[in-house]
């Protein structure tokens, strides 16, 4: 019986993978459902097991089964891994994703699973922490804080109970790596969490998944149940969010797990010292934890060998937006932005010139092609006024209106703000109103109240466009330096980068230089 492989990843299913799988089953094939390979342009994708390896066809539909099985279908991709989109990748974390049956413990073990955990058990907890430090792994959620140092803090904290919390509240638009990993290789995350538990002395872990990921929730719950014996005495449970973006902020996430209103906590105390239920807690992103099994099984050096500057190892970059080859590209740090967009991503889907790329999700900065030389590296992006974040990149062609994008950033912040701190709570709403006036080229005149004779201190003269833009910059300043968490703090990145790089979109006014300090 011919074995074929069809993805059960949510994106593949959305494109018709379930129908495809049924068609092949009807055709008498043994259909193995795998995770997603990560290139959406060739989905729905089917891979046929042959003596030369798995031969991929895509996109294909249910009616194409016969043509695929006799090898005549026009959309023959060939050996999947040899496709240019995959050829340049360095799949450390996503090695199994799209290859194995995600819930098969046998598949997982056959493809190198549990080796990291076994290696960790052979080491002392401190040696595990040391290995993670030596790997140079940094938090993949966006902040880029060295994972080993975080683990060390939790390990050193004295407490009767500690926790491992996995942040799977992947809320950035245009990002999907966490979801793909949880749906495609859940045991990898479980293994990483068990290693973390061993390293810091935590007995229990939580995986906090956003409610918009029903497939991931189901797969993770199933995987946690099946692997319970394998990771014992470490235990895990899955918690589902309730639709608040801000719960992806680590302290709001902890409040949410505790059953409280998901609101950002002030730091200190750091969660590593006083985290979940007041206990020392490792809170890491899915990708950070999922990188750990590789580090333990292949060695910290193998991981650290790849990378650029202080950014070591690989990053699962998620390419989305107006781009030909949207998908997941795990690659060593140092690849340039231009390579990602044009070479791996293949330029815009519309065929028009790229005008802007937003890196790091909805709170990341917009870069024009003039900055495509930037190497993918935490420090390089920070120096350029941006951030890597969770490594989502969204491509826009030359029809984009950047003032609208700046407004969208403020609006996003206003919608998602938890409302705790003032700059984010009120500032984002004022930001939307202000950008609307700027875009309309209609600076604010004196209001009804301000012209009342009782109001002697209010200015009655109308404001100029330059003054309104200066106010927008001041507002961004207040939000950036005054906000309690990254939601309000990072919202200025897209706004200011749009203003700086695309001033012509802002009501025709010249962008003002950065306000002198």
């Amino acid at each position: 019986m011919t074995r074929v492989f069809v993805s059960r990843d949510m994106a593949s299913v959305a494109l018709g993978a379930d129908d495809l799988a049924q068609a092949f089953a009807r055709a008498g094939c043994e259909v193995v459902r795998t995770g997603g390979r990560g290139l959406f342009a060739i989905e729905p994708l089917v891979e046929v097991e042959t003596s030369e390896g798995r031969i991929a066809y895509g996109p294909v539909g249910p009616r194409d089964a016969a043509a695929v099985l006799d090898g005549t279908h026009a959309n023959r991709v060939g050996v999947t891994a040899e496709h240019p989109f995959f050829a340049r990748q360095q799949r450390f974390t996503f090695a199994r994703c799209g290859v194995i049956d995600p819930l098969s413990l046998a598949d997982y073990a056959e493809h190198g699973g549990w080796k990291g955990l076994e290696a960790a058990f052979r080491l002392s907890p401190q040696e595990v922490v040391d290995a993670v430090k030596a790997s140079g792994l940094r938090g993949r959620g966006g902040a880029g804080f060295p994972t080993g140092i975080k683990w060390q803090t939790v390990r050193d904290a004295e407490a009767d109970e500690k926790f491992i919390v996995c942040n799977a509240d992947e809320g950035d638009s245009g990002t999907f790596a966490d979801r793909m990993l949880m749906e495609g290789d859940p045991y990898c995350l479980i293994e990483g969490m068990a290693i973390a538990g061993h390293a810091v002395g935590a007995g229990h872990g939580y995986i906090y998944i956003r409610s918009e990921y029903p497939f991931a929730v189901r797969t993770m719950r199933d995987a946690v149940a099946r692997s319970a014996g394998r990771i014992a005495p470490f235990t895990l449970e899955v918690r589902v969010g309730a639709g608040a973006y801000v719960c992806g902020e680590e302290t709001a996430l902890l409040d949410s797990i505790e059953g409280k209103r998901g609101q950002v906590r002030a730091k200190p105390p750091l969660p590593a010292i006083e985290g979940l239920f007041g206990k020392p807690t490792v809170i890491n992103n899915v990708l950070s934890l999922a990188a750990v099994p590789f580090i333990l099984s292949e060695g910290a050096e193998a991981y650290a060998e790849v990378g650029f500057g202080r950014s070591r190892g690989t990053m699962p970059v998620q390419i989305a937006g107006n781009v030909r080859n949207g998908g997941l590209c795990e690659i060593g740090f140092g690849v340039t932005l231009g390579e990602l967009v044009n070479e791996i991503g293949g330029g815009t889907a519309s065929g028009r010139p790229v005008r802007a790329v937003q890196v790091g999700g909805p709170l990341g900065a917009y870069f024009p092609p003039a900055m495509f030389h930037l190497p993918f590296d935490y420090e390089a992006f920070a120096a350029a006024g941006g951030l890597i974040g969770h490594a989502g990149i969204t491509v826009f062609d030359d029809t984009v209106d950047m003032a609208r994008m700046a407004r969208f950033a403020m609006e996003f912040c206003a919608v998602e703000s938890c409302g705790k701190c003032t700059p984010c709570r009120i500032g984002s709403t004022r930001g939307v109103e202000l950008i609307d006036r700027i875009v309309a080229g209609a600076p604010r005149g004196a209001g009804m109240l301000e012209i009342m004779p009782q109001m002697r201190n209010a200015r009655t003269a109308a404001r100029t466009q330059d003054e309104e833009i200066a106010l927008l910059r001041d507002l961004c300043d207040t939000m950036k330096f005054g906000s309690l968490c990254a939601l309000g703090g990072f919202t200025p990145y897209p706004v200011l980068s749009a203003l700086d790089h695309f001033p012509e979109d802002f009501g025709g006014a010249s962008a003002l230089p950065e306000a002198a300090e």
Partner: protein
Amino acid sequence: MTFTREKDFGTPEAMGAAVSLTIDGQEVSVPAGTSIMRAAAMVDTAIPKLCATDSLESFGSCRLCLVEVEGRSGYPASCTTPVAPGMAVRTQSDRLRKLRRGVMELYISDHPLDCLTCGANGDCELQDMAGAVGLRDVRFGYEGENHLEGCKDESNPYFTFDPTKCIVCSRCVRACDETQGTLALTVDGRGFASGISASQDESFLSSECVSCGACVQACPTSALIEKTVIEIGTPDRAVVTTCAYCGVGCTFRAEMRGEELVRMVPWKEGKANHGHSCVKGRFAWGYAQHRDRILNPMMRGSVDEPWREVSWEAAIARVASEFRRLQKEHGARAIGGITSSRCTNEETFLVQKLVRQGFGNNNVDTCARVCHSPTGYGLKTTFGTSAGTQDFDSVRHADVILVIGANPTDGHPVFASRMKKRLREGAKLIVVDPRRIDMVRSPHIEAAFHLPLRPGTNVAVLTAMAHVIVTEGLVNETYVRERCDTDAYAEWAEFVSEPARSPEAVEDLTGVPAADLRAAARLYATGGNAAIYYGLGVTEHSQGSSTVMAIANLAMATGNVGKDGVGVNPLRGQNNVQGACDMGSFPHELSGYRHVSDSAARSLFERDWGVSLDPEPGLRIPNMLDAATDGAFKGIFIQGEDILQSDPNTTHVAAGLAAMECVVVQDLFLNETANYAHVFLPGSTFLEKDGTFTNAERRIQRVRKVMEPKNGYADWEVVQLVAHAMGLDWNYTHPSQIMDEIARLTPTFAGVNYAVLDQRGSLQWPVNAAAPEGTPTMHIDHFVRGKGNFVVTDYVPTDERTGPRFPLLLTTGRILSQYNVGAQTRRTANVEWHEEDRLEIHPHDAENRGIRDGNWVSLRSRAGETTLRAKITDRVAPGVVYTTFHHPDTQANVITTDFSDWATNCPEYKVTAVQVMPSNGPSDWQRSYRAQAEASRRIEPAEPAE
């Protein structure tokens, strides 16, 4: 005292080792864990702030308090950033000014601008901060999206919530969570739509809010503000004084505008309440100005005549001449007096002095007779002191808290909040109560064990706990050996070990599952510091004194006396019931609990007062009433106690009073007892006099006069007038002189005087040469009596038993918004929460009788009958009914019997066998009593003055 706000350090005090840093170049040394904000405040550097206040944990939301720290990037919030050694902080710079102004600009872009007509004008932190950051222009304008359409919630009788003035700093929410522990408030919605919501978006009145006022106090603007401030304006002076409600003894700043009280604000420095309050102390002081208050003395020939207003001279002369006449005709012991636990120590002392020195007998008693007299007896017998062993702060160190026969969230709400805070921190709770009180399960609190015993079986339950502790080897033997009388222990241990005392043996009797009782006993004995808190559910039984001693036995056996976090803690009812007892209000005791037969003690007084004192104990209240019906007791001076309503078996009390020839009542109002009075002397409120109250933790605190007595005299002055008229040579010009006399004559008060009290704020007795600063924790190295005394507490069932005619057990209690007989709280807006007493009855018992929720029911016992409305709830177990006794119309004490504690005569209020049946309206007693009360309260208009 002029008006200054209490200094706000922004964040709570920390306790770590000293850390040095510089703030704006100034060297500061503060405890580790202190926030930068607090460290700055300690050297008078004010960092702008809105969401921070030192009664609440830091929150970090307003972002006004940003500072610069050398070597750190960004602008950390000074409220949430702890100090570090060598840290160099800058609190002012151009950059910070710009950021703070930016934040303030956002606030004001969504805030009403009519400051001058705002209730908080001049007392608004938002206004202050706008000034401090130099806000001059709101560049966003005032026409953006806003919250100015919000509706004001005026449902609470004492404060308003105006969402348009809310800056969403969450101080109210956090105060409700952290300080009060009710968690009634929340932030609803998120982002720009965030707003404060009471419960599930209800009005404050209909929400779970208990109106403690913590949110109002925490609010930095006028979003939450007292209605009196809106009405009167901001205060111009403040006087620190002590609350006159319960035995917690909260201290308040009485904030005044001229002679008018604007508001009572709990004092942060108050050692009993640490800046917290409840709905009574905080808001329910309007009775002091109530139109029912009697301001002129009144007399009448007989109780069926209307009252006539007379001059003070005439009233006092009548009291003196009648008392002397009665003594002449019926003997020196034919008259007596009752001191008031509501009055000051000084006033109480004077009343008992009047009796002992002026009346020449010991016929003095006090309302503690009906509440905590068993505490005095039981703790004196076992430990050697008639008082609790701890201060309230001790609860911070408790690991296991056993609450028995007390309902702290209603009766002692401010202390309950402290207790709940400790429970939220992880201490374990055991509740022993027939009723599922709020402490059993409330937000973030769940009792480890609730032992719902049948009323009247306290001793059996406590002895069974002792059985478990002794037979399972959980006794702290070292402690018992070193600290206690080992012979007494051995006898007690043998007694409790008998199989008949085991939880299994008493299970049917008490209704408490043996397994739960065993587990609770183990937890008490082995859970770390274990503290017992109890109330009238312990004392008001025929075995009240035995129960107190059974509690003391448990504490001694487990080594839980003599340090922080443990102890035996009576939650005393009245504001000064401890003080009234301390001051010699009992017929057998001189001040400081010295027996009148003790000739050394007596001679001390005799020398000071220049008279010889009767060495025989006088009559207790029930004995006075019995003697009156027998014709031997003829006259009584009752200061500030309504025995007709508060003492058991009302008909018997009424008969006793009616049999007397001269009943003198001094009170604020024509209370129920005054229906039987011949002379009425108007009393003064706690706002109108100087003095001291002593709370449940033996803490002596000053009561300060904030306004002139509306009736002309403070109560101590009235007693002095009576004394003068009876020929006594008293020359007090200020209560401090009375305290000096108390100190002179009472060893445990030797070091107490007003100068020290004013300087230290409060003192916990004993205060003497051995403990010049007072004694927060008693019995530290040894018990006051020497060795701790174990007392065998055999369970003797009460004679009050259920049977076919009276199949249910009635127990009584209080509710948060009302206070005891309600004389004060019924004359405030607190009636909005509790306008009548209701009978709680289990659904099964209600169904058997065809009673529906809200129906009128008759409540009948061997003693009498009354009617009230039913409330059906499973808070009470089947077979048990419960009511409060705040309303004279209900007259719960018509039902209660005259059974009482074997040792002290404390009435058995908590167990009465009753029957409950549907009813159409008031009982005969209620009808006739109401008619008589109305007739008896008639006042003839005074004749016009010349």
